[in-house]
């Protein structure tokens, strides 16, 4: 295992060392100490390595991640795992706004709460939040799955495309074109798998599914007066 003190060695040195790791890297486990809320920690990794961050981070932690498993033993600032491609990012604490924004793939697990705009414009990423999420989450979400074990804030799934949303608690309000959907066996199966990967003991049948009513993103000539 490699130990890296961020305050002593600096962010550029860390990210450049992480970028040097390739698929067959021997340095498979990294421990990052003293993150102290710094921004852009472990951004742009492209190797199947494990990175353990011992404390809370600032903006964009684990952004653009590919293949790596990143664990944060604390809370994260805005934009965690933004545009993630694959791999897994696990946050022990809370996440600030736009967690997992525009993510294409991989799994983001937030064991605490996520604030506003969680999963905004997600494009294939799976996100599991053990706690609650804030307003405008999954705004314009295109594909992937957002699982929320607690409650969701205002305007969930506004202008939603084809992302699947599952909420166990209350939804304060649904956004435009987002509606409640029936839970079919394939959805329970998907939930079971994601909850297990996210180490969450919630039961799939406790969730409600929400999805796009598909009225907004298909042009309807009857609505032309509104423009």
């Amino acid at each position, binding site marked *: 295992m490699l130990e890296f003190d961020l305050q002593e060695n600096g962010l550029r040195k860390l990210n450049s060392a992480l970028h040097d790791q390739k698929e067959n890297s021997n340095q498979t486990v990294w421990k990052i100490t003293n993150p102290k*809320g710094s921004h852009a920690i472990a951004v742009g990794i492209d190797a199947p390595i494990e990175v353990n961050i011992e404390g809370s981070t600032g903006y964009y932690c684990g952004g653009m991640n590919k293949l790596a498993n990143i664990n944060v033993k604390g809370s994260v*600032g*805005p934009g965690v795992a933004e545009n993630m491609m694959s791999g897994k990012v696990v946050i022990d604490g*809370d996440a*600030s706004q736009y967690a997992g924004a525009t993510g294409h793939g991989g799994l983001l697990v937030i064991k605490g709460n996520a*604030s*506003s705009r969680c999963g905004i414009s997600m494009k294939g990423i799976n996100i599991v939040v053990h706690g609650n999420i804030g307003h405008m989450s999954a705004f314009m979400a295109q594909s992937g799955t957002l699982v929320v074990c607690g409650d969701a804030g205002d305007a969930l799934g506004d202008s939603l495309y084809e992302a699947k949303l599952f909420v166990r608690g209350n939804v304060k309000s649904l956004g435009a074109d987002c509606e409640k959907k029936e839970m079919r066996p394939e959805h329970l199966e998907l939930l079971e798998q994601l909850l297990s990967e996210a180490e969450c003991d919630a039961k799939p049948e406790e969730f409600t599914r929400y999805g796009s009513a598909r009225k907004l993103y298909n042009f309807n000539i009857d609505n032309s007066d509104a423009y």
Partner: protein
Amino acid sequence: MCGIVGLFLKDNSLEANLGNLLSDMLISMSDRGPDSAGIAIYADKETGRSKFTIQSENAKTDFEALPNYLSKHLNCKVETKVNDTHSVVIIDESATSKFSEALASFNPEIRIMSRGSSLEIYKEVGLPKQVTQRFNIPQMSGRHGIGHTRMATESAVTTMGAHPFNTGLDQCLVHNGSLSNHNSLRRRLRREGVHIETENDTEVGAAYLTWKMQNGATLGEALESSLEDLDGFFTFLVGTEDGFGVVRDPIACKPAVMAETDQYVAFGSEYRALVNLPEIESAHVWEPEPATVYFWKH
């Protein structure tokens, strides 16, 4: 961007360290705004006495002759505490209403940064490190304080465009964000007779709160109505004589993080601002909800 910080002490033993902790917090936010910086500190007050902080471009000459002049015109004992371009002026409470006029008759160029009994505001153009050093903020003690480092978007980089802005007596405001209806609101407030000095958006926000309170609203009510009347982005941190409050606009895209322990309540634009506070590892850390007014009082 802008960076804002605040520290409210529950534990009296930290009071001597307030300026030091607050300066560190503000310096850690320097890259959120390099244009100007300011700090408001709530320090000791004397019963029956009022406190003002004033600023002059010719501090040396102005502040030498000022105490005698004021004491003659206000007919009371005047104490001053000169601090670089600023000076704290302490007068009898009964002379408070005559202070602005007396100061203007001495030299209309001198600006009043704060009015009240315990509040002191220090702000200038420059980085937080330079500004906190020139005013010796780390040596100051107090019960609570707020600070701001500015990245100017709506108006010029000047001393008067820097935050905190004094609202009512012993009240002040720092702001991260930008108000988009500040021009129309400024016109409206000026029609109501409110004095607004600069083209700065936050000054309008501060003047709005003052005006609401002059018309009978409590600070809490004024903040609630700001959610209706102010258009734009804001995370506000407000200082009052006995505490501080936080409010974010309903969209809440301007960041905010808070921490609470048995010893203090702290606010920062980012977690980085909080990392050197005592026992932060065991603090309760959370993000304040949008469109919700929070308050802590001694």
